[in-house]
């Protein structure tokens, strides 16, 4: 069966510090992968998606970047965090018509 992992689960970082969030998927090959951000209690905003290694599409201009160094690994990064980067970050993979989410990382930027 397929499993999606994210770490860390919780992160508190100062403004201006770098960020690296990791997502890995097990049990499937060549998945479409997605990064979402969710502001407190609201809907999901698609940040990046990837259809293959090294292929990244950005949905909104922002302070973040994404990379896919391996088929089942998706990384969300920032060189310098802003206060507005705080939120709940979710990684997802898709199969046919459904998306399956990882457990999420709650990021607080102080």
């Amino acid at each position, binding site marked *: 069966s397929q499993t999606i992992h994210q770490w860390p689960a919780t992160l508190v970082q100062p403004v201006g510090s770098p960020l690296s969030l990791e997502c890995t998927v097990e049990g499937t090959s060549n998945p479409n992968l997605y990064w979402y951000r969710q502001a407190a209690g*609201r*809907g999901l905003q698609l940040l990046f*998606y990837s*259809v293959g290694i090294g292929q990244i599409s950005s949905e909104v201009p922002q302070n973040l970047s994404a990379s896919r160094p391996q088929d089942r690994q998706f990384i969300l990064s920032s060189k310098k965090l802003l206060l507005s980067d705080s939120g709940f970050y*979710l990684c997802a993979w898709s199969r046919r*018509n*459904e*998306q399956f*989410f*990882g457990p999420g990382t709650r990021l607080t930027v102080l």
Partner: protein
Amino acid sequence: EDKVVQSPLSLVVHEGDTVTLNCSYEVTNFRSLLWYKQEKKAPTFLFMLTSSGIEKKSGRLSSILDKKEPFSILNITATQTGDSAIYLCAVNPMNRDDKIIFGKGTRLHILP
């Protein structure tokens, strides 16, 4: 531009009440509509709807799709405090990358 609109944004009811959550959408090419429940962590999948008029049911939850209007509703009968969550509606248009468009969610709070 494709979009998904959910209403209400927030709802507070008493345990035992029945609630109806609404989701309307505009997409160029519709493939499916998805409902998710999100408690404190990641959203969990509830239903996928592709055809009009066919009700999907799981325990006290049910959902139906009307592709003509277009909209979907999610019903929860005999609500319990454990139903408190954000309910997300999402539409999967026919696109190569499986990008799904989410609504902003309905925050449901059930009072004991």
